[in-house]
């Protein structure tokens, strides 16, 4: 088996890299793939929280690198899905504790046993980013339809294009708010895609369910009814190679919804 190593990166912090990682990983595992997620955000680890695995971590990536344990011992199995594993970041160390070569080596070893290795990249373009990208051959650039996030994504794309090892990168547009796009107060999906001229792999709507799912340590893809969950599931299917159309994020336009919107729109404008 030779797995695919995909780094999930963004440049800007807070756009949803880790949430994306947790959800795509879970969705791929639910589709029957063997998945391992590597948290490379040393000192600021969070992927364990989103997966609800924070109490199960015994060894971290730094323990593996410093040979206090074997790689397999450090992999934490998911609560629900035996196909899913996490290699956690160390919370007490900084970015210098692991080198590019070491990460490359870990990815190479994991390729033998897993279909997908998802690398969660820290924010920024410094060494942490360089480390995370080192072992990967594909990338997903997460951004939101906000100026600062798009600008940072553009920078990241420039850096990824300069890396020979990265064979392809795709754009994931997170926290899209169809209402704001409709009223011309938010850049549309087409705007962002045109500005960055990159291929799109997913459009995720802003969803309050993300907050509650994080609270519970339960990725939102496990919630069949959630729109964001569906969107993340679709991203996973596209990664596998299925041709899945993008979701229609417009709200259902029943008569009641229209009346409601009419009144909320009026009060909004009178302010």
């Amino acid at each position: 088996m030779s797995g695919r190593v995909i780094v999930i990166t963004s440049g800007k912090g807070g756009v949803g890299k880790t949430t994306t990682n947790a959800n795509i990983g879970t969705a791929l595992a639910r589709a029957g793939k063997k998945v391992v997620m590597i948290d490379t955000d040393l000192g600021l680890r969070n992927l364990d929280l989103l997966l609800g695995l924070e109490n199960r971590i015994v060894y971290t990536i730094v323990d593996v690198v410093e040979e206090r344990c074997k790689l397999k011992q450090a992999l934490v199995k998911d609560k629900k899905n035996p196909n899913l594993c996490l290699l956690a970041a160390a919370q007490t160390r900084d970015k210098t504790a692991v080198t590019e070569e070491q990460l490359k080596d870990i990815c190479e070893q994991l390729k033998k046993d897993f279909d997908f290795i998802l690398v969660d990249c820290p924010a920024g373009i410094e060494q942490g980013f360089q480390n995370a990208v080192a072992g990967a051959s594909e990338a997903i650039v997460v951004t939101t339809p906000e100026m600062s996030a798009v600008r940072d994504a553009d920078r990241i794309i420039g850096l990824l294009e300069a890396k020979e090892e990265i064979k392809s990168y795709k754009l994931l547009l997170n926290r899209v708010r169809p209402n704001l796009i409709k009223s011309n107060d938010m850049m549309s999906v087409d705007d962002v895609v045109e500005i960055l001229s990159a291929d799109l792999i997913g459009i995720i709507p802003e969803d309050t369910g993300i907050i509650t799912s994080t609270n519970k340590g339960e990725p939102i893809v496990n919630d069949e009814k959630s729109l964001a969950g569906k969107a993340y599931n679709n991203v996973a299917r596209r990664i596998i190679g299925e041709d899945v159309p993008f979701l229609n994020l417009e709200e259902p336009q029943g008569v009641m919804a229209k009346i409601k919107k009419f009144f909320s729109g009026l009060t909004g404008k009178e302010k």
Partner: protein
Amino acid sequence: MILANLYNKVLGFFRQTEKEAGESSKDTACNRLRVVLMQDRTNLTPELMERMRREMIDLLSKYVEMDKEALELNLEQDGDQVALMLSIPVIRAKDEDEIKAALEAEDKAKEETEECSQENETDETGDSDEEENSSEDDINESETVETSEDENEQTEDDTKTKKEP
């Protein structure tokens, strides 16, 4: 149905007044982003662009008489490619003698500066370093210089600079 129609009409009314008030915040964001990304991608700051614009004016003034204030030099994006767009409103084509005179004056000036630089080498090297840096940064960009007429002005006398000898 009636309610839906009413809703659309009222909403349309509000949309219209909004549009009349100016561009939407989304358009502002898109335009600002395009400009800032162009600068990020090419390392061409507004100061460098202005310098390039001035040098362009000096260069082209030898061949045509143009509206210097209205000369526009912009980076534009077309898909993956970044293009350098130059718009020159031409007032009048210069005649042969004028062009000759301008070129001769330039050659003369060049000779003089060459003499100067031999006496005064430190100044000259500092200057050329700066220019080298800005051109190195553009290696990845394919830049096409396009000359175009400014349609709003000087319709009668406009000539494409390309056509000039």
